[in-house]
């Protein structure tokens, strides 16, 4: 799968990217803010987006809404830190397909992507 990774921390992007690539996926791009995520999505048309929630300039939830407005079939996996259940719920309502919680197990991320692929 061609994946766009969205997270404000370079550290998290690197880690996710390693996990995804080991799992046989291609990272087609990265974004560090919500706004950038929307732009990159339109430009790269990835098959999947991993989305952080709390980011500068536009939150992950806003970004999900924007991306969904642009492409109703967009597949977005929320990747959030602990203690944000309410926000994750909001994201799912906005159109996110699944979520994983940091600190994540690599297998958990890959399983989740596999589930998404089958859907």
């Amino acid at each position: 799968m061609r994946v766009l990774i969205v997270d404000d921390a370079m550290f998290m992007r690197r880690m996710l990217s390693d996990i995804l690539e080991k799992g046989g996926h291609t990272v087609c791009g990265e974004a560090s803010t919500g706004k950038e995520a929307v732009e990159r999505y339109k430009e790269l048309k990835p098959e999947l987006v991993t989305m952080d929630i709390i980011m500068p300039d536009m939150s992950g939830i806003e970004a999900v809404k924007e991306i969904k407005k642009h492409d109703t079939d967009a597949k977005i996996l929320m990747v959030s830190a602990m203690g944000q259940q309410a926000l994750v719920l909001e994201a799912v309502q906005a159109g996110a397909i699944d979520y994983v919680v940091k600190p994540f197990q690599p297998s958990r991320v890959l399983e989740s992507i596999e589930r998404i692929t089958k859907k």
Partner: protein
Amino acid sequence: MENYTELFLSEVETYIKQLDDHVIELERDPKMKPAIFEVFRVFHTIKGMAQTMGYEDLARLSHRIEDLLIPAKDKGEIDMSIVEFLFHAIDYLRSTLQALSSNSEIPDSLTIFEAIERLEKGEKVDLLTMNLQITKTSEIRIRMEKLDKLLNLSNELLVARLRLERLCMEIKDQRLIDFRDTATKLIESMQDEVMRLRMLPLSNVFEFFPRWFRDEAKKQGKAVTLEISGGDIEVDRSIIEALKEPLMHLVRNSLDHGFSKEDTEAGERNTVRITAAQEKDWINISVIDNGKGIDWEKIRDLAVERDLISSADSRTLDRESAYNILLRPDFSTREEVSEISGRGIGLDIVNNAISRLGGRLYIFSELDKGSQFSIELPVSIAIIRAMIFRLDRQRFAIPLSFVQETFNLKEDTVKTVHHRELYKLRDEILPMTRLGNIIDYHSNSKKKTVIVVQYLQKKRGFIIDEIIDETDIVTKKVDLLLARNYYSGCAIYSDGLPMMIIDPRGFE
């Protein structure tokens, strides 16, 4: 996971700098919503990263701070006691990071958790007496050494290139010339790359100051603002590292002596500014305050009192020379100087540190208006473009950044007025200096050439024998035995022989 440790540490380090900036903003304006959100977001991000790395304690702490900030985030205003706490939390974060990177023991976090709990209950927290464990260590990264090795090697390569150049002139073989051209291109681009690797923006040293200054000013109870500009100018890493101490000294001097507590209570705008500007191969970093200024006549009188200068000399002593007395070790280490003249402690140390970098320190001041301490430094300490000239049979180099123009001299056009030699250059009167007389290289050469140099808004004509070349030279520090103010270092010419590098500012 080890692969990620380095990335984790360097990223959190940049977050700490951001936190410092935002919390300083909040101290000025607790209603600054974006800053509150940013502090919240950064702690949130650190939490996620720390969890992933398995740094449980750090994750928990960031999580607690995040919680502590939620009311402020919702309200759009932060309580000052929380701002004060955040400064300590950032310091704690910094020391934790240092401990993680040096594999030493992580400072105890119990008191900091206790402080959060009390703040949440709305209790007063005296952070200073809670004695948060904060260690401060200087950091040295191994990569710098590797970089230095690379620079040394590429400098050797430059010397080799210059020899090749020489060989071409002697042999004049087309194949050799072609090879020289290729090698020159490659060596030059490599040199550029290595130099660029070593360059860092001045913000690397400047960013330390806002927070430090805020703490110092607060300690002294003075309302003085620090302003910084020019942080984007890039200089060699070694300069960045060596600049912090002298700058701290100058900024502290301005704060200590430029302003009294009573003055700052009067509500006037009191500022210390750190500015940087670049001109060709030189950068000028100044610490400017609008405080009391330095009484140069008092310095002069003190110097006479202490037999540092004779009273006869003192009569002709001008303002600029009086300030230079401040740089003397026998003057500046005396405690009372600071109280009487408003300046002085340890300026000789600052001056020495700057000299070691190949730079100079200048002082300007006006009573009741303020003072300016300017450091002039070469952008890159290793390679400079220079003009090579001859005095008798000895060669010398002068950095091209000083050179304005050159011309051949007819002796009878130099006029002597009051023992000073002058030359009319177009519509300007140019003071002339016979370089050989000063540095003891007398020549009988009939042919004379003038190099017009400019520095510090001063123009001089240096009379020398002959200009030989214009080329890149690799500068090396001068041995103490040869150390003179007017030598900034030495270099090896393309034939392998050494030559001294002249620094015209040293003749003042």
